[in-house]
Each structure stands twice: as C-alpha cells, then as structure tokens.
C-alpha cells in the first residue's frame, strides 16, 4: 500500500470515468487512501461504473449524456473548485495506469511553490516502458506543438497533471473529446504559469492498453484543434 504521507485534504483528484467498472472501484479505493477528496465524473457509462463509485466515499458527478473525456475533466474541475478548501487539483486516469506515488510527488512539487502546473512525463527516466510506436507518435506530437516546444515539454499527452488553484480557476477546457490534452498544453504555452514536468511511470497493463486511445485518433485531434472555435 502507499504511504499516506501528509494529509492531502486540500487536494482534489478528478477522475473522468467512461465504462471502467472492471478496475474503477479498486483505483478509487487506493486513491482515497492517499487523497481523501476524489470526484469521479461519469461520462454516461453503460456498465457498472456508477455503482462502483457509489460503493466508495468518492464524490460522483454524472453527465446526463456522453460528452467526452475533456468535458468530463472540466466538469470535475468545476465541481472540485466549488468545494471548500480545494487548493490543488489532480487529473488522474480511471484505468489504473497512473501511480499514486507519482501523484503525491507532483502535489509536493506544487505545494513547494516551485510551479503552478505540474505535468507527468513518461520520457524523463524510463522511456523504454512506453511501447515504441506510441513513443514515436507522442514525441512527434510534442515537437509539432509550438507551445510544447516553448515549454520544453517532453510529454504533452500524459493524463497525470496537478493544477494549483489559480490555474484551475483560469483554465477552461473546451475540447470535449481527446484534443483536450493538446488544448491544455497550448493554453499553458500562452499563459505565464510556471510549468514543471515530473517523471512518472505508466503501468501499461493489458487493461489500460485495451482502453488506450488508438493512435489514429491523433488525426481527429489535429483536425479538432486546427478548427477550434475562437471566441464566440
């Protein structure tokens, strides 16, 4: 089990959920040990995901219809922001691919005041754990993004992120689908927030692999981003 460390009652973990019943309850229970405040945003799951959350002490927000992962993250942030005492916001995947130790480390970095935004990166230390094709595509994605280059990011599409309060108040994710990761990076590139990357490792289990997005989806993401509605 994970060492509880400091009392993280000013931390809110946002977990977007879409048909994750198989692993969700375990992930949420383990998360609750380290971070007492967890909000799961169910994005219209049709399996037992909702019941899994209800069996735990995690907060549950349910989208009435399926909107996409980006929308679920934004809903979770909006909900968590309204809770008293919330100062740090952790984005965490429901499929169990992130490690709580990494999340704790990242929260500590944010707490130390060294950064306003802490992003996880798969490429700092143990890049070999990432499948080769995925590695190439993710690397290219970073190099293609002007904001990613500006921030000297090594991994723009890691789902593990920690935001401090002012950033969470300012950020508005409008990309409902999977393009939100690039949207967040380009937002950070335009802003003056101090961004730090912290090495994390990803558990590429059989389950998380099967849930992971297809690389072809990158085409959709690029299209969505290039035609983003500006303003109105």
């Amino acid at each position, binding site marked *: 089990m994970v060492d509880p460390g400091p009392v993280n009652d000013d931390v809110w973990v946002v977990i977007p959920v879409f048909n994750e019943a198989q692993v969700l309850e375990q992930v949420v229970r383990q998360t609750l040990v380290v971070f007492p405040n967890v909000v799961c945003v169910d994005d219209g799951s049709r399996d037992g995901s909702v019941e899994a959350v209800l069996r735990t002490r995690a907060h549950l927000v349910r989208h009435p219809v399926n909107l996409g992962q980006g929308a679920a993250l934004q809903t979770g942030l909006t909900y968590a922001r*309204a809770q008293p005492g919330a100062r740090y916001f952790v984005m965490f995947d429901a499929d169990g691919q992130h490690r709580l130790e990494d999340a704790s480390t990242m929260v500590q970095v944010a707490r130390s005041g060294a950064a306003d935004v802490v992003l996880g990166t798969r490429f700092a230390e143990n890049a070999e754990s990432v499948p080769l094709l995925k590695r190439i595509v993710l690397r290219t994605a970073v190099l293609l993004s002007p904001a990613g280059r500006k921030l000297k990011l090594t991994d723009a599409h890691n789902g593990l992120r920690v935001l401090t309060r002012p950033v969470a108040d300012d950020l508005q994710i409008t990309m409902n689908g999977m393009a939100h990761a690039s949207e967040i990076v380009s937002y950070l590139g335009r802003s003056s927030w101090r961004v730090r990357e912290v090495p994390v490792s990803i558990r590429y289990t059989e389950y998380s692999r099967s849930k992971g997005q297809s690389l072809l989806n990158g085409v959709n993401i690029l299209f969505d981003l290039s035609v983003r509605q*500006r303003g109105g």
Partner: protein
Amino acid sequence: MLIQIILVVAVVAVLFLFVRSSGAVYVQASKRIALVLFAIANIYAVMRPDDLTAVARVLGVGRGTDLVLYALVVAFMAGMFSFYQRFRVVDRRYTELARTVAIREAELVNRERGIVPEPVVSTGDGGALPTVER
C-alpha cells in the same frame, strides 16, 4: 490557366476563413452577402447560358456548366465549414447545459450519500451556475 489559379485561391481562402474566423459580425455579414451574390449569379447563369459560356472561355474552362460545377465545389466547401463551425458553437452550449445539470444533481446526491459534511454553497463556474440559497 486562369481558372486554376482562381479555384486554388478560393479554396485556400475558404480554408483560411474557416480556421481563422472568430464569429465576428463582419464574417457573418460577408457570409450572407456571398450567399446572395451566389444566388444572383446562379439565376443569371440559368437565364443567359451563352454569357456564362463566354465567361468560361475567358477563364479557360470549356463550357459554362463546368464553371458552375467548379463554383459549386467551392461554395459547397464553404457551406460545409460554416455549418461545422455553427455545430461547434451549439455543441459548446449543450456541454455547458449538461455540466450545469450534472453538478447540481451531484451536489444533492453526494449530500444524500453523506459524504458532503455541510451544505455546499456553489460559487459556480464564471456565472454558469447560480448561487444556491440554503
């Protein structure tokens, strides 16, 4: 050929407008003016096909109907992009609506489950959610 240059420029212009446009008033207005002009040009083309063919010759297209076809392709692209943008705006509103509903319901549900210690006063999302009076 002249027509090739014109077509390529038109398609690029449509793409550029599509990516750049900010929903500003002048964009809206120019879209509508373009629509009216296109309609008038079509009526004229139907009434005087010989004139159209003359124009087509000048531009380096064989027949007037070919010219109409090319113009249609450009207009179709522009219309589709415009529609897509409109769809994105609607989608965004729909998301905000769903989010507001979800959060309101969640506050009730989580209080009933007993994991929210005290009534939470929602400060809302930039005015998207009104303050809950308790």
